[in-house]
Every structure is written in C-alpha cells, then in structure tokens.
C-alpha cells in the first residue's frame, strides 16, 4: 500500500557536546500508517522526535512537511504544521477538568463556551473510541485517562501527525491494548502516527513499519509484517543476541530470610501507600514485584531499607544476634542502625544517580558510600574502595577509561553495573533491586539478570521490582502483584498468564475508585 508522505527527514544531525545524538538520519513518515521508532535507550529516538516537535533545533539536515521544506523553531511552530507530540511526562493542570486542560492556551475570546467544547470533545472521543469524561478533574484520573487527555489535547488542536513517546510505560496490558486500538482508528482516519518504544512485542502488535535507530543512526526501515522480534533485536543491538532469560533451579534447602507482616505506610498525599502488605522472602529465590507505576513499590523497598517511615506492621530480618531466626524487627531503624544490627541487606534503588550513587563523584568515592566510616581516625581510606572499584570495573566490564571518572559521565548501563556491583560486594543475604534494567540496553540488562541469578544460586533472597511483565515472568520464581498499595496476590509465573497478572494489577484499582 502506498501512502502520502507527511514528513520527510533528510540528513538530520544533532550533537550534544561530543555526543552525536542523531547522525545523518533520513526517514519518511506517512499518512495512514503507524511507524514505530525502535531503538535502545540513548539511540536518539526521543532527540529525533524532539527536533520534529520544535524542542531541539537540528545542527544539520532538512525537514519537509507535506512537500514543503520547513524550519521548526518552537513547539508552537510544530503545531502550526500539524505535528503534535505526547511526552512521557504529562503536562496537565491537576485542578482543571479534562475539557479545560484541552482548551488551555488556545486562542479565542474571554469566555469559554463550555457546552460546545464538551460536545466537540465528545465527538472526538466517539470518533476514535476513547473513553473520557470531559468534565472530570485531572486529579481524579488514572494515568491512562491522563494520557487520553494529552492525546485529545493534541488532536483538538488539529494535529494530524502524532508522536507518542513511550506511551505504554505506565499502562497495564489491557490499557495498552485499548490504546493500540485507538491508534489504529486514527491511522485508518488518515493520520500519521509515530510511536517511540523499545518494547518489541508492542512494535509487532501496533506498527505497520519500523524504523530502527542505533547509536544515533538509522540502521534500517522494515515493514512489520515482513519481520520478527529476533530480527528487530539483532538490528537494534547490532549483532546476534539471545532473548532467553534463565531461571536456574537451586538445589539447597530454602529458608526464610525476610518476613514482612501487615506493613502499612502513609504516602505523600495522606493516602495509604502500603496497606497491610505481608509476604516472606526466602533464600535462593527471586521474588518479582509487579504493579502499575505508583502502586506502592517505591515505598515498599524504601521501608525495608529503613528510608521510609512505617505506620504499622513489622519487617523481620535475620541479624547477628538473632541466631539464624527471622525475628529482628527493623521498623523504625535508620539505615545505619540496620547495618549495626548486622542485617546483611543491600538495596539498589530506582533513582541510581539521585540516591544510589553520587553523580559527581568517581567510582572510588562511590564504592565507599556505605563503608566510609570503617577504620579508625578522621581520615577516609581510599585504598580499599579503589581496589574494589578496579575489581568491579574488570569483573562487570564497566566501560570507563579509569575509575576516577565521575559516574555521571558513564552510560546508564555502566552506572547500574557500578551500583549493583557495589551492593553485591557487600555480601548481602537480602538484596532488594528496584527497576534494575530501566533505561538499560539489552546487553546490560542481560548482565544484570545474570548477576541476580548468581546471587540467587548463592542463596541470597532477591526481591526484584520490575515493570516489564515478560521479564518478570521469565526470571522470577514468584511474583507478588501490588495494586493500590495492597497485595493483590502472590503467584507462580509458570502457572499464570500475563493477562491474569494484568487483571490483578488493575483489579483492585477499580475498587479504590469506588471507595
């Protein structure tokens, strides 16, 4: 099928300092087609689309919209050309309704004709199959509804070229399917759709064509029907990779290492971020934690690490004095006190450079973050951490010219290797990892899975907070599903389907809306 070309990019280049984010990229975006822009993190997908939507200005290259060469200097000018981008982070006014957010900033008289507006929006939603109440306030909305508002906002302003940046990251599998159906409706209506993603199964199910970026260059454009996930991965990474994730069996007797009993925490808005959460973590297992973003995952791991105030319940660990029994309650203890009690716990937080590491410091100084107090006297010992940094650099193949390079200069995957490496080096009994592969390329992700499996085989109890259900189901021995701060269930991934977990993730949310 031939389609009219909406946008044509020719030889686009954009550098940030010495980093070539985009190098000589040429690409056509066609009407009546969903184009997936596939690439690993840092491959330049978002940069390229930000150039189209007027946020960045290209260093070189030409942009042609509807056959005419244009220069896009601001998001406003992109809009005039009919280009609308839906970013990962929504920009909505919480206290206004959907309809008010949609018209915000539009030209017009002093008064807003609310009824007309609502009718216009209803017409739009019916046309494409959205589910949205235009009079609902944003703060009452779920993430998926907020996304709908963002999309309608762009459509209402007359965009016929839509760019969506990682739109499914915050959605349940069911919500994702709904979104894809809507995207297909819009495509059939003659709109040009670009979806930025790094998830292969989504590319396969939603797109008509795939453009693959690697290290800032467009390596290939293929028709989705003529390709498969393995081929796309190989193109994306640049060589053959295995997509299998191992789940090794352990041959020793598993014992309880961590018991969480009726844990309750209050969130920033005064709601129960965690509501009577109970589970047991055993040695030699990886327990996955699934749930849509903001279901209490962050609070759970930070509470266990002694960084989040606990309202009620208990967190029981083994300690030096508990003679192998799980009875040391660490609720109310600071991280220092937990360490002093001899609880061997390590935590890889979600925010690597804002919590797990100090961005401006080098590997050596980051190694001693939790151990700098060791040794007598007022001075720090940098010899031991230096040896540790060198060891981690060699063993985990951290790509850095030297261990004295500030960690913020390292790539995401290498930053994570430094962090995970340090935490594992502390020989923990309990290892809590939050979103350990977020933003990592495929190769680094597999390194992390391997490291976690090694820990599991050593008898460590691993808790893995994840977002990619496919990964959780392949790697974990058990999966705990969180929904609205409550445990919706703990399941064996070998015995349930992805859809069942998806329903558990969403199930209780409906309850919450009622209550």
């Amino acid at each position, binding site marked *: 099928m031939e389609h009219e070309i909406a946008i044509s990019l020719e030889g686009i280049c954009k550098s*940030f*300092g*010495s980093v070539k984010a985009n190098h000589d990229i040429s690409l056509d975006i066609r009407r009546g087609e969903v184009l997936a822009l596939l690439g690993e993190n840092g491959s330049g997908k978002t940069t390229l689309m930000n150039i189209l939507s007027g946020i960045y*200005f290209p*260093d*070189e290259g*030409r942009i042609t*919209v*509807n056959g*005419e*060469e*244009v*220069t*896009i*200097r601001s998001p406003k*000018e992109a809009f*005039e*050309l*009919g280009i609308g981008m839906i970013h990962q982070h929504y920009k909505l006014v919480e206290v206004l309704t959907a309809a008010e957010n949609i018209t915000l900033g539009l030209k017009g008289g002093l008064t807003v004709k609310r009824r007309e507006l609502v009718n216009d929006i209803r017409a739009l939603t019916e046309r494409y199959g959205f589910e949205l109440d235009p009079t609902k306030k944003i703060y009452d909305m779920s993430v998926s509804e907020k996304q709908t508002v963002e999309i309608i906002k762009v459509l209402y302003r007359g965009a016929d070229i839509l760019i969506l940046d990682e739109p499914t990251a915050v959605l349940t599998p069911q919500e994702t399917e709904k979104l894809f159906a809507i995207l297909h409706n819009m495509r059939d209506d003659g709109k040009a759709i670009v979806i930025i993603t790094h998830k292969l199964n989504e590319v396969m199910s939603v797109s008509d064509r795939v453009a693959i970026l690697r290290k800032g260059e467009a390596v290939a454009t293929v028709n989705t029907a003529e390709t498969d996930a393995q081929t796309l991965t190989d193109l994306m990474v640049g060589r053959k990779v295995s997509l299998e994730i191992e789940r090794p069996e352990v041959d020793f007797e598993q014992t309880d290492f961590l018991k969480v009993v009726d844990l309750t925490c209050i969130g920033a808005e005064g709601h129960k971020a965690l509501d009577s959460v109970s589970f047991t973590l055993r040695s030699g297992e990886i327990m996955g934690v699934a749930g849509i973003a903001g279901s209490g995952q962050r609070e759970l791991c930070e509470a266990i*690490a002694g*960084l989040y105030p606990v309202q009620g319940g208990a967190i029981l660990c083994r300690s030096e004095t508990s003679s192998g029994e799980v009875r040391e309650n660490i609720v109310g203890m*600071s*991280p*220092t006190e937990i*360490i002093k009690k001899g609880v061997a716990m390590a*935590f890889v*937080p979600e*925010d690597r450079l*804002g*919590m*797990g*590491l*100090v*961005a*401006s*410091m080098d590997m050596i*100084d980051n190694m*001693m*973050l*939790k151990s*700098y*107090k060791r040794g007598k006297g*007022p*001075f*720090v010992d940098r010899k031991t951490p230096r040896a540790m940094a060198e060891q981690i650099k060699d063993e985990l193949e951290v790509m850095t010219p030297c261990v004295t390079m500030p960690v913020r*200069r390292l790539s995401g995957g290498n930053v994570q290797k430094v962090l995970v490496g340090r935490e594992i080096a502390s020989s923990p009994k309990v290892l809590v990892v939050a979103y350990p592969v977020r933003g990592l390329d495929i190769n680094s992700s597999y390194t992390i899975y391997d490291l976690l499996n090694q820990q599991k085989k050593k008898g460590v109890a691993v808790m893995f907070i994840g977002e990619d259900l496919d990964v959780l189901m392949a790697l974990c021995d058990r999966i705990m599903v969180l929904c609205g701060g409550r445990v919706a269930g703990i399941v064996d991934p070998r015995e349930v389907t992805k859809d069942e977990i998806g329903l558990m993730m969403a199930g209780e949310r409906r309850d919450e809306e009622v209550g």
Partner: protein
Amino acid sequence: MDKAYKHHEEPLMRITARSDMPAGKAWIIRVLAIVFALVVGGLVILSLGHNPFSVYADMLRGSLATKTARVETVKIAVPLLGTALAITPAFKMKFWNIGAEGQIMAGAIAASYFALYWYKVLPGPLLILVMLIAGAVAGGIWGVIPAIFKAKWGVNETLFTLMFNYIIIGFEKYLQNGPWIKEGTTYPKIDMFDQAARLPKVLGVHVGWIAVLVLTVVMFFYLKYTKQGYEISVVGESVRTAQYAGMNVKKVIIRTMIISGVISGIVGFLIVSGADYTLNENTSGGIGFTAISVAWLARLNPFVMIFISAFLAILSKGSNTIQTDFKIPASAAGVLTGIILLCMLGGEFFVNYKLIFRHKKHAELPKGGEEA
C-alpha cells in the same frame, strides 16, 4: 492539505550546554574574561578623561609598590580569604550561608567585649586567647542557629542567614551608641583597644595572615581527605543519597555550619584585634558578601582562593589610590571593580555553554528561505 505553511528562519543564535571543555581552555577563557574586563574598564576610564594605562599602573603601584601599600593590601586580603574559607564547607554542602557577614560581626563583638573590659584582668597572651575563643564561639552560635532551623524544620537558610546579618549589625550599633560608647564623648564611637588586646605583627602585618594560610591547607585536607569532608560532599550532592548511605544529615548540616560560623567568628576577631583595634558597624564591611564571590570564582578550591582574594585586595587598595591620585570618584572605582567581577563570573558562562550562530550554508540550500 490546503493549509498555508509559514516559512521560518533558523534562530539567529542558540545556546547549548557543554561538558567537554578541557581545563586548559577553560583557564584561557577565564584569563580572556579578565582582559576583556580591563578593556571595558579602560573605556570607562577613557570616558572620564584619563589615560587607562597610567590609571591601571597607578592601581598596581598603589597596592603593591611600597611596603606600606603591600601591608595594606594584605590586610584587606586576610579577612577575605578567611571568610571565603569559612563559607566553603557550607557551600560545598549546598547550604547557602550568606550570613558570614553577621557571623564575623558576632565574633568581633565577643572578642571586643574582652578587649574592652578584661584587658586589665587578664595577662596579654591569655587575653588574646580568650578573645579568639570568644570570637569563635560567638561566630559558631550565630552560624548554627539557622542550621538548626534548617535541619529540624527545613527553614530556608538563605533568608535566615541574611536576616541574621541585620540583627547582629543592629546590635552592634546599639552597643556603640549606648553601653560601650567611649567615655567622655557624645559621638557614638567605641574606644581603641589596649596594646595587650592587639595581635602581634609578623613582617609588618598581624599574625592573622599566617593563620589564614594554615587554615587554607587545613580546609583543603579537611574537605578532601576526612570522613566529615566526604559527608559534606555527599549531602551537598544529594540528601537522599546521604540518607541511603546511612548518614545523619541533620548532624552533618549542624556540624558544618558550626565550623563555618567558628571560622567567620575568628575572622571577626582578626579584624578587630589585628587590623582595626576597635569595633564599629563597618567591621564586617561587606566582607561576608565579597567572600562569596571569592569562593565561587575559586570553584571552592581553597588554594585558588588565595589568588582570588589577593586579586580583589589589589583591586580594592588600587581603587583607593586612584581616587586620590586622579581624583576619580569613589563610585567610578566601584564601577571598575564591578566590571571586573562581572566579567570573571560571566566568563564561566562560556566555559559551561557554547553559542551556535545561524548556519551560513543554510541560505545556499534551494528552499532555505530568503538570503540573510
């Protein structure tokens, strides 16, 4: 599509962040910034009807040529360097202590109390020691109060330390006008210190200069090689990381501000006991604020601060000289100093960012809009 699309020119100039500048090139830019400042300053001098070269030469002569001039210049540099060192740990922790001015004054008042009322009781060296301790304690107290409020209740330290300056300076004026007024006068003035309360001199300048140089080395090692220095860096970078690492962030904030305040208080003692031999409302004289520029221009490196504070002292002393020699008004000398400081700080912009001008070759493209 029947929409009429507008043609747009590429923006004339764009700003991009950079992180790749080699250190050598960065220093060239900094030197160029000073050269540029001297040229602009020269134009100002020219517009006042003087020869810029002879005015600049006179500034140098006035601040460095004679021993008296050098002594005066060093006397300006000492408290500047001391105060810059005082605020460095706080700034490294991203605790914006702009209250060094007040902490200096607190130290100066406490030291002056012993100088004025205990000089007959205490023997010479002991009196000096007591003055030093009093100054340090008072400065420390004045510095730690905002830190406690910050640590316990998250009160904004910038406003707090700023307001604290006015309180202590107001208190000094009260002392000067009332309880501590020189006997037998109605003019609000505090008596000169007794010889016993004056710091001894080494090479013509009070010993304070040795003290601040030693402190420079100590501060460098404290920040770089001690556990406390490491804690300061981590807290400054990210409070969440510090908590994650098991640091007691409140304790670090309070301890660091005590250090900052104590050093400022000692600087106050050095000023009254070594330079002025009395106390007045100008004892702190804006040093607490100029020191912020010193610390910042030196990028919190104690050794670089020696040169920056010396440079500013030369500027300051030199502009006094040109006021008398060329009858250049004090305000014009101030303008000159301002231009140089602004250019030095502005130079940092070019170290961190680069400007990209509109492509020339864009106009050569077939449909690239009209010729510029």
